[in-house]
C-alpha cells in the first residue's frame, strides 16, 4: 500500500499528509461546542441551507458521488441506499439515525453526539430532505444518558429557534426528530431490530425483504444510517463530493473514525483518511502497542481477528483489502490484544457478550451462541476440557456460520473461528494441561 500516495498523488491516505484536516471531529472534545450558538458560530446548519437550494435528487447524487459508505459496519454506499426510497406517494417517510452503538470496541458516535449534537441533527435533516422524509428518528442506546441529554436539549433548542419543526429555516421543508432511548440490547443496532424496538416491540430482527425503504418504521418508507454516516453528509454538502472522494482509495473513499482500544499506549478515537495502514494507526496515532501484541481485531469484536504481523499491519484500511485478508472494516473499533493475554479467555469474553445479547429468535444463535458455546469455553477455562472439545468447538462454530437468522451469530463465530485458526495452540494447551498458556494478570493501571 505504500505506493498508493505516490501513484495517486491527488488522494490522501495518511494522517501524515499535510492536506488532511480533521472535520467531523473538529469540535468533538471542545468545551461548549454542543450548543446551538457555538454550532452556528462556525457555520452550523449552513450545509442544510445549501441542500435546500438543491433538488433532493441532486443531494442524493452528490452523496453518491462522494463515495460515502455506511459507517455502521456494513459499509453500504449511502447515496445508493438513499436512492432506494420509493417515489413520493404522500405517505409519511422516515430517516432513522442508528445511534445504538453497541459493538464492542466502538465509541465514535457517542463522543460526536455528546459534544457536537447539532452536527448530527443537521446530517439527519439533509438526509431527510434528500429522501423526502419530514420525520427523523434518533434511536440512541439507553446507556448513553449524557449524549441523550445533550441531544434532547439540542433538539429543544433547535425547535425553539426554527432549526427543527415546520418550515425549517424558512426553507418550506418540515423536519423534526423523535429521540428514542433504547434500554440495553446490542441487537437493537441491527436496523430492523431497531425498528421493532422503536415501535415498542421485542427487538427481534425482521425478515428482509421488505427492506426498510419499502417498509421500515411503522411499515412506512424508511432510510436508516449510522450517526457518523449522517454527520458526514453535512461536510460533503458543504465541501463537495470531490473533497470527500479525494481522501481514501478507489474502493473506499473519504474518512473513517478509528477507535483504538486494548493494549496500546494511547487509546482514542482518530479521524483518518481511508486507505491508511493499520501500522500507521497503531504505531503513529495510538503510540504503538503496550508491550508485545499478538493480534488485533480491525473493526469491533464482530470481525475476524488478524495476527499482529507485518502482513496484516501493512494492510490499508479499506473495505476490499480487509475483506480479502479475511476480515472486515466493521465500525473501525480496533482492539489490540497483547501477547500475554490468554486468547481463550479473551474469546470467552467476546462469546459471553454475544451470548448475553442474542435475541433468542433463531435456534443456532439461541442454543449455539447463547447456550452451548459459552459452556464449552467455561469447561475449557476451568481446566476440564479435552482436545476433542477443541475440535467440537471448531465444528460448532462452523455450524453457526451462515445458518442464523441475522448476522449476530456470525459476529460471534468469526472471532472465535479465527482465533482457532491462528492460536489453536493456546486452546490445545488449555485442553492438555488444564491451565492457560498465559495466566491471568492484573491489567488495571493505577
Amino acid at each position, binding site marked *: 500500500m505504500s505506493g498508493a500516495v505516490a501513484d495517486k498523488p491527488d488522494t490522501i491516505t495518511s494522517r501524515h499528509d499535510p492536506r488532511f484536516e480533521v472535520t467531523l471531529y473538529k469540535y468533538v472534545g471542545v468545551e461548549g461546542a454542543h450548543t446551538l450558538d457555538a454550532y452556528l458560530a462556525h457555520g452550523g446548519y449552513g450545509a442544510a441551507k445549501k441542500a435546500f437550494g438543491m433538488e433532493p435528487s441532486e443531494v442524493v447524487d452528490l452523496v453518491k458521488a462522494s463515495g460515502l459508505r455506511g459507517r455502521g459496519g456494513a459499509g453500504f454506499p449511502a447515496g445508493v441506499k438513499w436512492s432506494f426510497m420509493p417515489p413520493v406517494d404522500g405517505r409519511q417517510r422516515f430517516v432513522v439515525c442508528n445511534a445504538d452503538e453497541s459493538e464492542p470496541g466502538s465509541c465514535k458516535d457517542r463522543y460526536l453526539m455528546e459534544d457536537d449534537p447539532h452536527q448530527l441533527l443537521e446530517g439527519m435533516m439533509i438526509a431527510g430532505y434528500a429522501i423526502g422524509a419530514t420525520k427523523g428518528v434518533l434511536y440512541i442506546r439507553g446507556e448513553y444518558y449524557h449524549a441523550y441529554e445533550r441531544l434532547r436539549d439540542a433538539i429543544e433548542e433547535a425547535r425553539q429557534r426554527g432549526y427543527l419543526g415546520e418550515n425549517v429555516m424558512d426553507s418550506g421543508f418540515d423536519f423534526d426528530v423523535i429521540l428514542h432511548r433504547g434500554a440495553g440490547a446490542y441487537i437493537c443496532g441491527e436496523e430492523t431490530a431497531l425498528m421493532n424496538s422503536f415501535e415498542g416491540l421485542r427487538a427481534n430482527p425482521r425478515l428482509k425483504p421488505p427492506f426498510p425503504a419499502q417498509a421500515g418504521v411503522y411499515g412506512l418508507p424508511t432510510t436508516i444510517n449510522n450517526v457518523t454516516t449522517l454527520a458526514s453528509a453535512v461536510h460533503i454538502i458543504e465541501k463537495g463530493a470531490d473533497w470527500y472522494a479525494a481522501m481514501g482509495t478507489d474502493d473506499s473513499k473519504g474518512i473513517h473514525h478509528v477507535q483504538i482500544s486494548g493494549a496500546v499506549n494511547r487509546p482514542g478515537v482518530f479521524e483518518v483518511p481511508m486507505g491508511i495502514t493499520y501500522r500507521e494507526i497503531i504505531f503513529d496515532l495510538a503510540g504503538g502497542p503496550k508491550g508485545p501484541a499478538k493480534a488485533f481485531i480491525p473493526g469491533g469484536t464482530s470481525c475476524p481477528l488478524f495476527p499482529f504481523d507485518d502482513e496484516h499491519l501493512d494492510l490499508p484500511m479499506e473495505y476490499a483489502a480487509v475483506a480479502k485478508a479475511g476480515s472486515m472494516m466493521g465500525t473501525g473499533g480496533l482492539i489490540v490484544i497483547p501477547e500475554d493475554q490468554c486468547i481463550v479467555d479473551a474469546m470467552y469474553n467476546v462469546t459471553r457478550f454475544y451470548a448475553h445479547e442474542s435475541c*433468542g429468535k433463531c*435456534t*443456532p444463535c439461541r*442454543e449455539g451462541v447463547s447456550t452451548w458455546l459459552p459452556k464449552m469455553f467455561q469447561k475449557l477455562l476451568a481446566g476440564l476440557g479435552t482436545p476433542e472439545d477443541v475440535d467440537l468447538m471448531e465444528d460448532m462454530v462452523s455450524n453457526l456460520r451462515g*445458518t442464523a437468522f441475522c448476522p449476530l451469530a456470525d459476529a460471534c463465530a468469526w472471532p472465535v473461528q479465527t482465533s482457532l485458526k491462528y492460536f489453536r495452540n493456546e486452546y490445545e494447551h488449555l485442553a492438555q494441561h488444564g491451565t492457560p498458556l498465559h495466566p491471568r494478570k492484573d491489567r488495571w493501571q493505577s
Partner: protein
Amino acid sequence: MKIKVNEVELDVTPGTSVIDAVFAAGHDVPYFCSQEYMSPIGACRMCLAKIGAPRKDRATNDWILDEETGEPKIFWFPNPMATCTTQVMEGMVVDTISKDVKKAQNAMVEFTLVNHPLDCPTCDKGGACELQDRAYEYGSGESRFVFDKRHQEKHHALSELITLDRERCIHCKRCVRYFEEVPGDEVLDFIERGGHTYIGTLEDGLPSPFTGNITDICPVGALLDTTSRFRGRNWEYHHTDTTSLDDPSGAALRIDTRTGRIERIKAGLNDDVNKTWIDDGTRFGHEYADAEDRITRPMVRRDGTLVETTWADAAREIAERIAGMDGTRIGIALRGDATLEEGVAAKALADHLGSGRLDTAPRPAASVLPDGAAATLRDVATSDALFVVGDPTEEAGIVDLRIKDALKGVEPAPLFPHGPAIADLRLKERMPRKREILTICAPYRTDLMKHAGQAHVPPATSMVDLLHALAERASATVDGGTPSGAWDDALGMTAAEADALITRMRSSTRGVMIWSAFVSNDPRADEAARTFAKSVGAKTLILGPMANTAGLERISVLPSHDRYDYASMFTPETKALFLASLDPAVDPKVADRLRELDLLVVHAAFPTATSALADVVLPAVTGYEKDGTTLNVEGRLLPVRAAPVEAGTATDFTGVVKQLGEAFGTRLEGRSVKSARRVLRKLLDVDAAELPTTGQPLPPVRGKASGARAVREYARATGDALIVPSMVRVEHLDRNPHLRAERGDAALRAHPATLHAHGLTSGDVVTLPIGGIPRQLRVTASEGVPEGLWLAPTLPEQPVGLYDANLAAMVRERSATAEVA
C-alpha cells in the same frame, strides 16, 4: 415459473415459498417454526437448503450463461437459506439433500436438542411429536452436548385448560404468533431474551376464546391440553374425523378416543370452513360425554319409579300407551343439533302418528335460511365490507375467525397437493388490520368489537328499530334518493355513520351482512335485515342458534302450522310428547304441565329435570357418537361421524324410530341412518353417504324460505335480562370439570354500577329467575354491559332474547368473599 428441486423439475406459481415448492416436488424438508395459515418467520432454521438461481446481465437483459454448458449459469447463495422465507425465482435450483445441506440440517437438529429434555417416554406428545420425528430423520442420533440442560417449570398451568412444559419448548413461536395472527388476542409472549427466553403470560389465565389451538400446533410436548394429559399414548388413540355439532359453523374435528372414552378433541382441517382452528367451547366441551351418569339403557316408570328395561319393552310400552290416541295431540321435538337423518326419522314418526306437532328447539321466529345463496365462510374471509349484528364469537366461533381473516385482507391461498401452504409468504407477523371494513351492532359490548372500525351498542329493546331505520335509509338511497329522516332517531348512530356504512356496503362487491338470533327472533327485525342486505347488495350469513337449525328447517322438520310449534306443546291440548335432548322442565311451570301428560317420552343422554318426569326414558348418544349429516351456516352439507364411545345401548333418534316402528309393526323411513339417507337423496339430491370430510355446498332453495312464522303483531320486546349466546354450552357445564374450572359457573354479567345497586360483587353466586326459569349463575362485573341490564348465557330452553328478571326473587347462594376466606 419453472424451478428445479433436487433434479425434479416443476412449475410453480410466482410468490410460492421454496418450502412449498420442495413439498410440491414430492421431496421433504424438515421445519418447526412454519405453520399452515400463519406467517413464515424463518426462526427455527431447520428448513435450510442450498439455493441458487440464474442471473440476467443488467446491460443485455439476457441470462448469463455457463461457459461450459451453455446453459444459464447458476449463482448459489453463499449461505444456506431458510426455504420457508425464500420465494421461488425463475430458474431457481434447490438442493435439500447434498452433504452440505445434510450437515446444516444435522447441526440445526443438534442445536434444537441442546436444551430439550428428551423426556419422550413421559411426554404426551410422544409418537406424534414433530421434533421426535425430525430428530430421527435428520439428526445424527448422538448428542455432543454434555452439560446440564436449562431447568425450567415443567407443569406450568397457563390456564385451567392448557399446561406448559417450559423445558420442552423449542421457541418456534407458533403459539405466540398464533395469538396475534389468528384470534388477535395477544395474551402470550416471549419473556426475557437469548438463551433465557421462555413463553409466558401476565394475564389472568389466557383470556381468549380460542386458546386450545396452540396445543395442536405446538410441534413438541410443551403445550398440552390439560383435559387429556397423561390419559393415553398417541398410538393408542382411535381417531374419528368428523364435524362439530357444537355450533353452526361446521368446524372439522378429530376426536381421539381410547377404550370407549373421548380423551381429547383436536381441530380437523377444512380449508373452506375452519382451516385448522376451533374455539375453546368446541375443543374442551366434550368431557360431559364421558360423565358417570350417562343413561345407557331404556327405562320405564313402574309404580312411580323408573326402572331399566330393554329397548323392545320400552318401545312396546310406548306403542301401547299411544294406541288409539289422537295423533294431533302428540308432539315431537328435537334439539337443533340433531342430524338431518334424525330429522327425517322424526318426520316419519310424526307422519305415522298423524301429528303436525313437530318442531326443533330452539328455533327462531324467523327463518335462518337466507334468500338465495348464503355467503360462504370464504366470502366472509375475503369480504371488504362486513356488517355484523350480534356476537359471532359466542354464536359460531369460526365466523369470528373468518371475519378476522378478512381484516388482514389476504385472499386464501389455493391448496397444494400437500395441503395448505406451509409458508404463505403474504402472511406477516403483525399485519395491519383493515378494521374500517367491519361494523358491528349488538346490545352489549362484544369481544369482536375491539377489532371493529365501528361498533354500536343500542339498547336491547331498540335493535329492531335500528335495523328498520337502516333498511329505510338504504332503500331510500338505492337510486340516489334521499331518506325521509323519519327514522333517524332510531338509528343508534349518526346519520353520517349510517350513510358511511350504507355506502361502504353498497360500493363493495364482496359485502357480507351477518346476523344472529338477536335478529331472527323478531320477524320484523329479520325482515329489516333482509331488506337492508338486499338494497346494499350484500350476501348474508344467518347464525342459527344450534348446529343444524338451518338444516332441519331446510328439510322441513317443522310444525304443520305455527299454532303447533314447540311452545304450543306445553298447552293442555297435548297429550303425549317425545322430547329428544331437550329439558323444558327447567321451567317449573312447564314441569307442572308435563306432569299432566298421558305420556312423556324423553330421549336423553343424562338425567335431567325432564327425564325425572318421564314415563319412558330412552338412552341417547351425544353429538360425538352420531353418524349423520349437518348443514352449516354457509349451507354446506358436512358429515358427522361417530366416535367409539362406550354408552351402552344409546342410539340417536333414528334408533328410536327403528324400535318404535317395530313395536308399531311397520317399517318407518328414517329407521336407520341408511334409510334416512334414501329420503335425503330425494329431498336434497345428495348422497349423504358419499360426502367428503370437507363437505359439499348444498344449492340454495329457490324462493322464500319455509321456516318463517307468520308475522303477527309482535309486541316490542321488553325486559331487563338479556339471554345471550354462549360458546360454552352451559347445559353441559356441570359435567365438564376442566372447562368449568377455567370459566367458572355460567356468568350473570352486569355493569359494575348495576351490581353495586343490588349489593352484589363479582364472584357471588346467585339464583335468579329469568323469564320464569331459575338460573344459577356467577355474578361478573363487566363494563361492556349497559347499566340496568343483566346478561345470562342461553340454554336450549331459553333462546337468545330479552326476558324479565325477577330480581325480587334473587337468592344469593354463595358470596364471593366467603370463598376467598
